[in-house]
């Protein structure tokens, strides 16, 4: 009997570009092979995604998924690790980085988005002095 992992690699990669982020999270839990497939495939194309830091919470929205992580160095490091476990690349038409008093250090921002292919980047500021930052 054939199982899904005997299907052509090109098909599995194509399939993984057609599932939503929340489905990728659930697929991780099905078995080890899917956990690996989720980590090693591209998530496909999404119209928009965003990053928002407000008070002590770091929020990332991609497609149907919204991640909320404590804004601490340790939590961000773990979240960057999680991102590498749910896709190895993603294409975004529009990425919004919303500054709201907190600044995500440039190096960490680069690390977080290093497998993102972003067509348009917007940075939204809520105070004039954030423009300088």
């Amino acid at each position, binding site marked *: 009997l*054939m199982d899904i992992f005997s299907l052509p690699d090109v098909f599995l990669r194509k399939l993984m570009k*057609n599932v939503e982020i929340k489905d990728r999270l659930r697929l991780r839990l099905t078995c080890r092979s899917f956990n690996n497939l989720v980590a090693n495939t591209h998530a496909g194309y999404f119209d928009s995604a965003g990053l928002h830091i407000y008070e002590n919470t770091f929020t990332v929205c991609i497609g149907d998924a919204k991640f909320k992580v404590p804004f601490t160095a340790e939590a961000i490091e773990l979240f960057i690790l999680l991102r590498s476990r749910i896709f190895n690349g993603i294409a975004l038409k529009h990425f919004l980085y919303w500054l709201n008093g907190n600044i995500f250090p440039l190096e960490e921002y680069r690390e977080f988005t290093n497998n993102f292919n972003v067509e348009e980047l917007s940075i939204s500021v809520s105070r004039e002095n954030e423009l300088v930052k």
Partner: protein
Amino acid sequence: RIYPLMRVTLTTSDGASVTVSRQLTKHSGFIEKAITDMAVDDNAVPLSAVAVDVDDATLKLVIEWLTEHRDDALPYPEKTDEERRADDIPAWDQAFVQKWDTKEDQQQTLYAVITAADKLDIKGLLDMTCKTLANKINGKTVEEMREILQLECDFTEEELAEIRKENAWCEN
């Protein structure tokens, strides 16, 4: 240049022979290349049959799909990343796949057609079957996904707990 009246004989992996119109086989990159490699001239027909690594039952399904899609535009439009939607499967194709759902081995049939579409390089069929499987998975629970995809959970409870903990950062 394609000669629609030309007929091509295909021999299957289980020894059957099927003769089909070139109008159908033009959608298969594999068969087209095989015919080209035979160096057929304008007036000739291939002297040798084309051997395909697909069984007779699966090839019949592929031919049924090709017959419906014989007038589809060629070359098949390359999908860009923007086209990730899976809800645009034509009604005929949906009915074609639903028909398999009445079979006990529906998943095996789908997997066989996917493998055939890849071997024969039929991009439209590969796209359609991909969307079909994505639609079966999308929005399902972990248990439902395991059932649909016929998967056995091989994680320990500790490993599952660790993944659930990471996933918990995503709001429901």
